[in-house]
Structure formats: structure tokens, C-alpha cells
């Protein structure tokens, strides 16, 4: 288990290629809110590539910018999907608020040379909230006869599992002796990587069902 998690922390990023391939295969079907999932996957892969290319030097400053971009792209996906079901200012308002708070955090609380756990924690909480609202909207509208063929269901599930798991491991890791124990740190990274793999698999399933969504969306 331990070696698997360590392996996962080192090589888990390769699984992003699955969702990237799905994006390229279903490129023209990714319309409406799925447009932002296309952007999210491309952004995640680019972020990973840039992180790999710059890992010889301290590159944690990239994470600060990436967290803001990632949250806003995901928030745009939810804003598009929610439409007028919730107050229209809800998601854009939270996007602006989060961006301001994340920048303020990077300037005053957690410098660019370290991890931005405050911002990523807040992003995770907000995305969990969006995911719950998304499930509620689906339940209220009952728009899909076969929910498991609705791409938004899989994408929302992937985002919820990833961010809820990340938040959990982040807070649990902080509570335990991760800071002082390298082995435990690797395990937390491994579990985080495992969640990321799970998210990208679920995103790929959602993207795979996008042609069906296109039919519904354009009809």
C-alpha cells in the first residue's frame, strides 16, 4: 500500500492523459458548461508540464496562480450550468471574492515561496458547495432520464470527490505529524494523487458522454 501510494505520488500525473485524450476525441461536442471542463483539463495538463519543466528551481509561486485560475475555470463551469436556477450573482460574486482573498493571502499570509493552503482550502470548500448545489439542481429539475449518461453528473462527482478528499487529507495531514515525518508526507501526496487520478477518470467518463449531452443541449 505504502509503495503504491509513493508510486502514485510520482507517476499519478500520467493519468491526466486519459482525460486529455477524451477532450481531444470529443472536442467539438464539448459545448455549454463542458467548454470549461475542456479548459480545465488543458489547464491541469499545462500546469503539470510547467511544474515538471521548472522543478529544478523553486516553483511554488506557480501554484498560487494556478489555484486562482483553476477555481475560476471550475466556477465558470458551475455558473454556466446553474444558469438562472440560483441567483445569477452567486458564482461570479464568489469568483471575485475568492480571487481577492487568494491574492491577499499570497501577499500577506502565505508568501509565494510556500504552499497556499489557505487559498486551496477555501477553493475546495467553495467547490464542494458548488457540487452540492449542482446535485440539488439536478434533483430539482430531473432533466436526465438516465443520470449516469449525463456528463455533468460524472464531472460534478469527480470534482466533489477530489476536492472533498483533498480538503480532508489536507486538514488531517496538518493535524497529524506530516510536517515532521517524510514517510507520512509521501503518503498524503500519494493519496492526493490517487484522488486526482480518480477525478480525471470521472472527468473522462463525463467527457465521453458529451455527444449525448450535445444532442440534449442543442435540441
Amino acid at each position, binding site marked *: *500500500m505504502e509503495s503504491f501510494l509513493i508510486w502514485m505520488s510520482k507517476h499519478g500525473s500520467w493519468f491526466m492523459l486519459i482525460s486529455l485524450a477524451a477532450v481531444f476525441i470529443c472536442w467539438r461536442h464539448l459545448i455549454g458548461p463542458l467548454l470549461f471542463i475542456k479548459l480545465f483539463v488543458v489547464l491541469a495538463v499545462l500546469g503539470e508540464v510547467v511544474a515538471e519543466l521548472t522543478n529544478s528551481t523553486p516553483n511554488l509561486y506557480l501554484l498560487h496562480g494556478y489555484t486562482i485560475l483553476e477555481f475560476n475555470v471550475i466556477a465558470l463551469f458551475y455558473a454556466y450550468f446553474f444558469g438562472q436556477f440560483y441567483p445569477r450573482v452567486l458564482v461570479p460574486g464568489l469568483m471575485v471574492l475568492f480571487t481577492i482573498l487568494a491574492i491577499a493571502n499570497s501577499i500577506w499570509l502565505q508568501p509565494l515561496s510556500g504552499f497556499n493552503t489557505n487559498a486551496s482550502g477555501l477553493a475546495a470548500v467553495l467547490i464542494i458547495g458548488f457540487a452540492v448545489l449542482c446535485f440539488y439542481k439536478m434533483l430539482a429539475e430531473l432533466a436526465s432520464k438516465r*443520470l449516469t449518461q449525463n456528463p455533468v453528473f460524472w464531472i460534478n462527482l469527480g470534482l*466533489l470527490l477530489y476536492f472533498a*478528499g483533498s480538503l480532508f487529507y489536507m486538514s*488531517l495531514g496538518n493535524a497529524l*505529524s506530516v510536517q515532521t515525518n517524510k*514517510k*507520512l508526507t509521501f503518503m498524503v501526496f500519494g*493519496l492526493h494523487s490517487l484522488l486526482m487520478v480518480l477525478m480525471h477518470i470521472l472527468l473522462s467518463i463525463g467527457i465521453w458522454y458529451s455527444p449525448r449531452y450535445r444532442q440534449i443541449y442543442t435540441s
Partner: protein
Amino acid sequence: MVQSPVSADIYVLIFGGSMAMLFLVGGVVSFLMIYRKRLSEQELRVKEMEIQHQQDVIYRTLDAVEDERKRVARDLHDEIGASLSAMRLLVGQLTQCNPPLSGTDNLINRFKDVIDTTIDSVRRISSDLLPQGLDELGLTYALEGLCENAMSLADVSVELTVDPAISFPPRDNLVLYRLVQELLNNAIKHAQATNIQLLLYTHPDYVSLCYADDGRGFDFGTAYQQRSLGLKNIETRAQMLHGTVSFDTQPGKGLRVTVHIPR
């Protein structure tokens, strides 16, 4: 053996994470189940609404047919009937002409007969279209007329018993009248019944119409599957009164129909 704190932390991490994931997955599974349940409930509601809509269309069509029948019956009675009566009077005046034309008496009498027959036909058609006295004298009177008419048309004896306490709104009276008319028509046309019993009585909660004949009877399942128009008509009329209908019949054993109409 005492575990090291680090190894305990790993177990907490893995166990806690697994529990959190299980909790989330459980939530998603519950969501899926609730979604399916609500979806099937919604589909059921939609189907019920569709059936209700179809019934409404049928009821409205039948109401429209009744309205049209009333209009035609009134026009026949008021216009054609009145014109024929006037014609009859004018023909009667021909005999008083001076000097009387030779050989016309016979022709005038034949003319009168034709007009009388036409007046009778108009009256009959009019009363077929609009039950005589239903609105003015009530359901019992109209049903008596219907039974007398049936007895005059065929060699059949109809025994009608109506509870005097029965009272329906005019529309329901008409629907019930048509229902009985359909039953009697079937008895005369198809069942070759010789004895018919009709009983209309009240319960505290509902009104019951019991019909029984000694006709040929039929296989109900086959007739229903063949979508017998008569059976469907009876069923639809009962539904229009928010009532229920039950048929009891077998080949050679007559027909018994019971309609319960809530009060």
C-alpha cells in the same frame, strides 16, 4: 507490542480517508436512488396527467355532442315541426275552397297523411336527440319514457324501479339517461332479452344503478379486448359521473351491470 506514533498516524490517515470517501460515495448512491425515485414519481404524474387529459377530451366531446343534439332537436321541433304544422293547416283549408276541385279530396287526404307521418318522424327524431321531459320533469319520467319506448320497439318487458329520493344535476341526469339508453339498446339489438330489470336506489354514500337482463350474455373478456363500443360507452359514462361500473355476464346467462355513483 507498542506501535510507533507515525504508524498510528498512517492508520488514522488511511482509515479516516476511507471513512470520508465511503461517506461521500454513500451520499452519491443515496442521491442516485432519490433521483430515480423522484424521476419515476414524476413519470407517473405525467402519465396520470395524460390520462386525465384524454378523459377530459372525451368528456368534453361527449358534452359537445349532447349540446349539439339539443340544438338540432330544438331546431327540428321549433322550426321544422312548426312549419309542418302550418302546412297541415293550409292543406286543411284547401278542402274549404269554393268550388271544391273535383278529384282532389283523395289527394288532399294523402297529403295530410304524409304531413302527419313527417310530423311524427320529426317528433320521434327530436325526442331521440333530446330526452323528452328530462329537464322539465326529471330523470324518473325520462327513464319511464325510455322503457316504454323499448317495450314498444321489441317484445321485451322492462321493470323499472327508481328511488324517489334520487336527485342529480341536469348534466348528470343526461349522462345517466344515456347510460341506461345504451344498456337498453344493447339488450334489444344484441342480447335478444325478454325481461329487463332496472333498479336505481340510493345509499348514504352512493347511488346504485343495477341492470339485469335474461339475454344471450357474452364473454366479457373477449368483448372488452375487442374494445366493444357499447361497453366502452357505458364505462365512459360511468366515469363521467365519477362512478365505477362492474359487468357480470357469461354466454347464455344474461347480463348484470352495477354502477356505483358517489353522492
